[in-house]
């Protein structure tokens, strides 16, 4: 059973994405990157990202991640801020520490692509 199924599949992603995106928008370390984007399409992308992080059905590739974050000059601090918001979201939803660790491990696999290094 994947983490995705374990924590409740699509319903869990739906519950998580609003909370997660709200936290990101409220976080002064990273919210400037979201000022000019269309919220609705960004929300859909966040959902795709969370589905991937939870090990659900997706076809996200490192190339997509690299392309999407190109020229943004993101640093390790930005990446960590997003990860922190994700952890806090999962804690809000009472996801167990073991699952949280596994989800963050998935996120770390795309770190280099996100940072374009």
């Amino acid at each position, binding site marked *: 059973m994947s983490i995705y199924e374990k924590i409740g599949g*699509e319903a869990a992603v*739906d519950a998580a*994405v*609003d909370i997660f*995106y*709200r936290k990101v*928008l*409220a976080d002064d370390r990273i919210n400037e990157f979201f000022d000019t984007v269309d*919220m*609705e399409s960004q*929300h*859909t*992308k966040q*959902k*795709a990202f969370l*589905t991937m992080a939870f090990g659900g*059905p*997706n*076809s*996200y590739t490192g190339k997509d991640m690299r392309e999407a974050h190109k020229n943004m000059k993101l640093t390790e601090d930005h990446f960590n801020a997003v990860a922190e918001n994700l952890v806090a979201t999962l804690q809000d939803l009472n996801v167990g520490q073991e699952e949280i660790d596994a989800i963050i491990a998935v996120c770390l696999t795309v770190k280099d692509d996100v940072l374009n290094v």
Partner: protein
Amino acid sequence: MTAIVFEGEPITLDEGETVLDGLLRLGHSIPHGCRSGVCQSCLLSATEIDKVANAQTGLSEAQKQLNFFLGCQCLPTEAMTVARVDADVSRIKATVMEKTQLNDQVWRLRLTADLDYRPGQYVTLWRDENLARSYSLASTHEQPWLEFHIRHYPEGEFSSWLVESLSKDDTLELNGPLGQFFYTAQSEDPMLMIAMGTGLAPIWGIVNEALMKQHRGPIEVVVGAKQAKDFYYREELGALQAQFDNLQVHWLSLDSDSPETANLYDYCQSNFSQLSDHKVYLCGGTSFVKKLRRYAFMAGASMRDIYADTFIAFGGEPG
């Protein structure tokens, strides 16, 4: 193998082939992305809703009611008819029934035409082959006309033609309806609707439909304008408010004597600070909608419960 019809063309899908894959294989240009039902790029519409229900996961209530589905998630087992969303560009004839000036800037146009629509959706009106503008539907099905609220821009070619030249019994063409801005709430849902200027048009249509469908949850309507003299339909909304206990209308103008009602954004933030479980409807210019969408989301409204309709500038030209 399943045969489907795509925009009039019969198409045979291979065993286990999704609608999206079949269309792409035959060279149709269909936007697509994740192929996992997540990115929602490959949105299509179907004539028969029961055949696509299992390809609607994650779509908004409005999209479901319009029979939209995700092509990458749809494995038809029997014949069905599909099309790109908003693909209908065929135009119908409409006749001017009434044209009335509501205030300095706004005109009400009522047309008769045979159109099936949801109040709050929009249509594109055509003067001729070269000039068209989109306007929201303010009428409901109980009315034997289509109603539009049209702001006259003195520099605007379309609205000036409409105000100066168009008269009763003239005909023009329209196509539509388009858009997902209409009533989808459950009866008990609290609703917050915020309109700037003629953004009131679709909201007027939606409020009337909600009340006619016996919506029981509270409905807050906030109408903004630069100056109080730019308001219209005050009496009409007042009459509705007197008739329905669950409707509350707030009029906010920048020239208000009361600083409390002079800033729509601050007013909403302090009066409607908790929007979880609300259905939120926003209609106005681009920056207005953008700012209010963010406010509504941060105040707790779920993204899929925020409906927004933004005035579009046709090629950057005024209306």
